[in-house]
């Protein structure tokens, strides 16, 4: 593979709700697995064996193919000490790298600031979803958050405004209403800047769908739609270096098997289509995708599902990824568990640092708040 001169691009896929590590990368020969999962386990004849210890769950065939191709890294035992069992708190920690205090500055936003210190390109980082995850929040660092690419923008669906020029005129008025004005105070200034950035982002991004064409037919589910949107904006070459999106809910307390199956069918299919799309456009060599979740689930099942746990699994996918297993699967022995959960043995900030340092070419220390052990998967 030839080295690329293009800027590195990162896609972050958040598996919201805490994905069940044990039933995603299954330690199928470990007797503790079956003992702890009398009801919520993957039958051995269905799992996709990786080696004599581990297997992927069924419905991960498309990802298994990528793994077999050497383009997917599996990062074991990821998490942090004293992992809270609260989704929100744990997600917050993943978003801000602040396990001790409630942080307000997101790591992705800090990375964005380092990539574009003047905030010149407001689509340097693009989120697809409703609302802005805290990972992308940082005062003064614009990021663009798109809920629907077809219909994205300020004043995009004002009733009674149908003609293009009428809408353009409203947008011009909006821009002037949000123009800098002397002596109106910091909050007005901040609102003005935020409004102008949003307008600019919408303006840039609306060109993406027009430029795109592909033979890949993505499935009809939210993650497939989101990753297709990522592909369209990425292929439009707007200078975006970070994409963020989420899928879920992975919070499988109840009736886990069909839910988990559906989720991984959707995620695996969407990722596989996404990379096929990039390949079709010969644009896969400067992009990697990372998948994370707030924590894994309890080792012992609850009869129909699994409750909140601690240690989890993360993935990195892409042409430039050195595929394989990284880190160690935490022990399932009762004496090694932490309150019934897998004890994390790899700090997620090391995982971030590896990506920030080795892929994005930035200094990870100020972004994740310290020096953490990196892994060499890119």
């Amino acid at each position: 593979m030839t080295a690329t001169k293009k800027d590195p691009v990162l896609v972050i896929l958040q598996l919201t709700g805490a994905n069940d590590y044990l039933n995603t990368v299954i330690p199928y020969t470990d007797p503790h697995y079956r003992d702890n999962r009398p009801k919520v386990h993957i039958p051995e004849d269905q799992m996709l064996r990786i080696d004599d210890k581990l297997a992927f769950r069924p419905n991960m065939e498309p990802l298994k193919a990528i793994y077999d191709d050497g383009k997917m890294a599996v990062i074991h035992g990821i998490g942090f000490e004293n992992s809270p069992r609260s989704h929100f708190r744990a997600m917050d920690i993943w978003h801000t790298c602040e396990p001790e205090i409630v942080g307000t500055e997101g790591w992705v936003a800090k990375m964005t600031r380092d990539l574009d210190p003047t905030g010149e390109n407001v689509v340097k980082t693009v989120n697809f979803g409703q609302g802005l995850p805290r990972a992308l929040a940082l005062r003064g660092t614009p990021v663009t958050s798109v809920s629907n690419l077809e219909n994205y923008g300020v004043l995009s669906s004002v009733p009674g405004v149908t003609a293009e020029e009428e809408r353009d005129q409203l947008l011009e008025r909006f821009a002037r209403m949000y123009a800098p004005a002397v002596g109106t105070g910091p909050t007005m200034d901040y609102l003005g800047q935020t409004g102008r950035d949003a307008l600019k982002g919408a303006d840039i991004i609306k060109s993406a769908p027009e430029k795109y064409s592909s033979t890949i037919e993505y499935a009809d589910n939210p993650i497939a739609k989101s990753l297709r949107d990522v592909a369209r904006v990425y292929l439009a070459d707007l200078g975006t270096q970070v994409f963020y999106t989420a899928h879920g809910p992975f919070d499988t307390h109840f009736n886990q098997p069909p839910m988990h199956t559906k989720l991984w069918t959707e995620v695996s299919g969407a990722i596989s289509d996404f990379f096929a799309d990039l390949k079709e456009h010969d644009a896969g060599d400067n992009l990697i995708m990372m998948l994370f979740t707030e924590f894994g689930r309890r080792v012992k099942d609850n009869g129909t599902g699994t409750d909140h746990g601690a240690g989890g699994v993360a993935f990195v996918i892409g042409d430039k990824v050195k595929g394989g297993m990284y880190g160690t699967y935490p022990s399932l022995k009762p004496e090694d568990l932490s309150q019934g959960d897998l004890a994390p043995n790899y700090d997620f900030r090391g995982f971030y640092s590896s990506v920030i340092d080795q892929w994005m070419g930035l200094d990870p220390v100020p972004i994740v708040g310290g020096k953490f052990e990196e892994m060499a998967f890119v």
Partner: protein
Amino acid sequence: MPHQEDIALMAHLMRRAGFGAHREELEARVAKGYEATVEELLHPEEQPAIDEDILYRFFPGYEGALGPPINQAEWVYRMINTSRPLEEKMALFWHQLFATGNSKVDNPPELTQQIAMFREHGLGSFRDLLVELAKSPAMIYWLDNNGNHADAINENWGRELMELFALGVGNYSEDDIKEASRAFTGWTIAPKIPRNPLGRFYWNFEYKPEDHDDGEKHFLGHTGNFNGEDIIDILVDQPASPKFLSRHLYNFFVADEPQVPAWDITPPGDPAAIEMLVNAYVESNYDIRSMLRVLFNSDFFKNARFARVKSPAELVVGTARMAGNYNAPRPGFNMLAMECNWQGQELLNPPSVESWHTGPEWIDGGALVRRVNYAANLMGNIDLPGIKSVIARIKAQGNLPPADLVAACLDAIGPLDVSEATHGELLAQAQDGGELRWDTEEDQTKSEQRIGILLSLISASRDYQFA
């Protein structure tokens, strides 16, 4: 015809003490008088309550829900339709101050119960409210007091009670936290019924004398065999307590203050205002109603128009009330609740016990686009009853030159003050269509549409982001 300034002041009061009011209501209230309206707001028990039977018919799941959306929708319905605006606004105030989240509690009905408790006690004695809070099952679980035992204390509740709910940092020692925690041992919840597969169940407060540490405690200079209520009695008599509460009331009702963690280093924006509220607290024995009476009748309040960034709940509910399409049970409340979430305020699920950051911190690129589009889409929909009534009011003024049209729009949905830049654009938009005319049927259709677009543009402005 009521004086314009009286209407503007009443609109201000209703935006702050409630979720805004449309013109007919403002005029009725002005006729009644400002102080009389304040008194009416302060006594919600004299106004009819929401009809719970109708509510339950439309939100039948809220008592056993597994996830929060239906409970959020139930609350949004109340905010829009209440005849007791201040009761509901205070419930929101206490929810933002005593932030308890479904992320951990995982029992939306129990959080709805806590909000009901805020409605019941939110205007009474601060002391009684803290006791109710200490007994709130959702709070006990949220801050682990069910894990606070005589032989092994858990400090979570004891710490946050002082740091975040009653005093603020710097007004107690680590030892005080330990002693307070000892006093609250045995304050727990009755055994929970397993929630699956039938949904969630209400929990109950339970005091277990056998798990209570009855020994002597030294707390904030007092010594005794204190129990939880004794701790609260001591707390509400601390000088820090009214200062802390007053600053929260000021930040919520009057003008944006810096974020709470900065309070021990940044003085209040208006120390004299805080002092007035503190005096009201002391003179009335911690009576919140008395503090609010002073607040709403003060000059500092009356002069603080548009000095706060609307919270998502205020923006979503205020706009829906104005557009007037949600004044009966009907589908769609879930979407309003989700809209609050997407704008950054997931009701019943604050990000942490430190709650949401308020003021300008409500705004980021994603949130602003949502705020603008949500408000512009509702306010520009000329088929909605509230907008129809705005149009009727403007139409009653006959044919209008562009400048008068802008003034009429700003007046009808406010009155709103807007900046020069905003006004200039509204005027330019109005001028494009020339005089607003009602002479022919064609004129009428066009004029209604023009008003709709102007209302959209107003609600998309920076100015509309302020309450």
